[in-house]
């Protein structure tokens, strides 16, 4: 069903403005499900998502522009590098409680931003890197080549990848791995007493989460065509967190909904401009206080109420 929706969307929204938004949505969905895997399932707050996103974007772009590496090789390298960076960071902090990890990852995000800003010989600092080519056309034998300079095709690529990631993570959280991670989230000490190697699994979850963010970064670079460090400031981590929380952490569909809502809503309310982030902040706070399960919990409550109402009204006599 999701595949059909992805297939139809660029046909419905044919203007480039909405197609651009669709691609942003797909990238945000990737970032959000990546964060949710480590936050919602393993219970570890990763505030470094902006850094891994940036590492993926800069690493793949620099490999392409400086070393002439083919796009897909650079893509894999970017994803791996982001994943390894995430694992290295969590190795430092996994022995500690959730709060330490949150702060260590936030610190990592600050540092990565500073490095991107100050390592001018490599990243060109605040001037940014320009004219990054879109992914090369995909040539399937016997069919016309698919060019990704076309926004609709680029959307198919990013959304297709997001869907693939979603399905893989979905399989993962339904498998014993998911149960192990949930056990760690619920009670680390008990999980350890059952013989679960908590640090190892936390590093694993962190690695997956940051690799997914790295993939999002690669797509972002080839889609926008320019890279500046400001795109990877720590506020980006907070925006991703807002998507996960508003959608509903601990489910995979929740962050997808949250990412789409928080990307599309500000576009619909164009007039609010600067107020966008205030909306993010308010919604995060209110959701945590009153509806910690986010949109998913709200939807369940509504469904439950409807079902009860249907059950309460006596079935009409059939003629």
């Amino acid at each position, binding site marked *: 069903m999701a595949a059909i929706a992805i297939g139809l969307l660029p046909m419905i929204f044919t203007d480039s403005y909405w197609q651009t938004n669709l691609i942003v949505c797909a990238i945000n969905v990737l970032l959000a499900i990546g964060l949710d895997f480590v936050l919602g399932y393993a219970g570890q707050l990763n505030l470094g998502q902006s850094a891994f996103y940036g590492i993926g974007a800069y690493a793949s772009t620099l490999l392409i522009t400086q070393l002439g590496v083919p796009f897909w090789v650079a893509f894999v390298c970017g994803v791996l590098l982001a994943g390894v960076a995430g694992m290295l960071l969590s190795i430092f902090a996994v022995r500690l409680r959730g709060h330490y990890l949150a702060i260590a990852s936030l610190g990592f995000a600050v540092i990565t931003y*500073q490095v991107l800003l100050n390592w001018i010989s490599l990243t060109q600092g605040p001037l940014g890197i320009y004219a990054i080519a879109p992914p090369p056309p995909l040539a399937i034998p016997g069919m016309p080549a698919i060019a990704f300079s076309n926004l609709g095709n680029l959307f198919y690529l990013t959304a297709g990848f997001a869907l693939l990631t979603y399905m893989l993570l979905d399989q993962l959280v339904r498998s014993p791995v998911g149960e192990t991670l949930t056990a760690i989230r619920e009670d680390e000490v008990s999980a350890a007493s059952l013989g679960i190697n908590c640090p190892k699994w936390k590093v694993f979850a962190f690695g997956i989460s940051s690799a997914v963010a790295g993939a999002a970064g690669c797509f972002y670079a080839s889609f926008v065509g320019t890279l500046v460090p400001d795109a990877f400031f720590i506020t980006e981590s907070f925006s991703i*967190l807002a998507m996960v929380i508003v959608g509903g952490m601990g489910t995979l569909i929740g962050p997808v909904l949250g990412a789409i809502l928080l990307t599309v809503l500000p576009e619909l309310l164009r007039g609010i401009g600067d107020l966008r982030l205030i909306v993010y902040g308010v919604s*995060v706070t209110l959701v945590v*206080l009153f509806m910690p399960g986010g949109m998913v919990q709200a939807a369940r409550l509504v469904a439950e109420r409807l079902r009860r109402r249907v059950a309460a009204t006596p079935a009409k006599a059939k003629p």
Partner: protein
Amino acid sequence: MLTVILQQGINGIVVGSLYVLVALGLTLIYGVLVQINFAHADFVTLGAFAAYFITHLLSGNYFAGIAVALVVGGVLGWLLNATIFAPLRERGNELLPLIATIGVSIMLQNAMLVLLGPIPYAFDTPYSNHVIRFAGLFFTVQSMLIIVMSTITIGILYAFMKFTFLGKALRAVSQDRETAGLMGINPNYVIMLTFVIASALAGMSGALLGPVLVLTPFAGTSVIVKAFAIVIIGGFGNVEGTIIAGLIVGLIESYTTQFLDPGLIDIVVFALLLLTLALRPTGLIAERREENV
């Protein structure tokens, strides 16, 4: 050369003592609640702006500005505890309050951005242009004021924790909330008090930092990231460790600026943070905390 080292040492202690004030608030809250208040940074910024406007309104009465910033911080802390931390305490999820305060922080920062704009405010107190020369060293009266005020505040706080009933109650709650409750201490009251004290400290350090920092709605963020590093380096909930770590970070900052590059400050501080996490996860001054099973 020696003068440069001494001069930068003094600059480092000035900034460091302010970081200590900010970090002490975080560490006090962590001590009683094992929670982090992300909006602490914005209390610093709001304190700085409160002091700025009061000082300008009262044509240069900086001390009135500091007092108002203190009150603003305290009220915000009370409010935050009442609306976020108290209702979430029963939920038992350790990450929810942290996430909620991130929400509050995004909200406050961007509200300030809309109201006050992104252009830095020039916060000149009657003391910032008064320079004293001594043995080849320069100090502004402002920086002396910062050292004196923060030393007095830290002293008062220390005496309060050590000698007054409330201070002892606060320490009792941070050691064991349930037992403290059995001894007739109302933990909710102590937690509320801790929030008020910690946030008043944040507001006041904002008032003192305002003239030194680039005063924008995001001023607090750069301070808080270092304050977080300080609390981890000093050991969460450890007051002495926080003071020492704060001064170390202040010195690192001024010497990095002098001898390396200002862009490297965060990187050096963060490297120290990672090193602490790897080698001494309980902080430089170790304090054993048993894991509850």
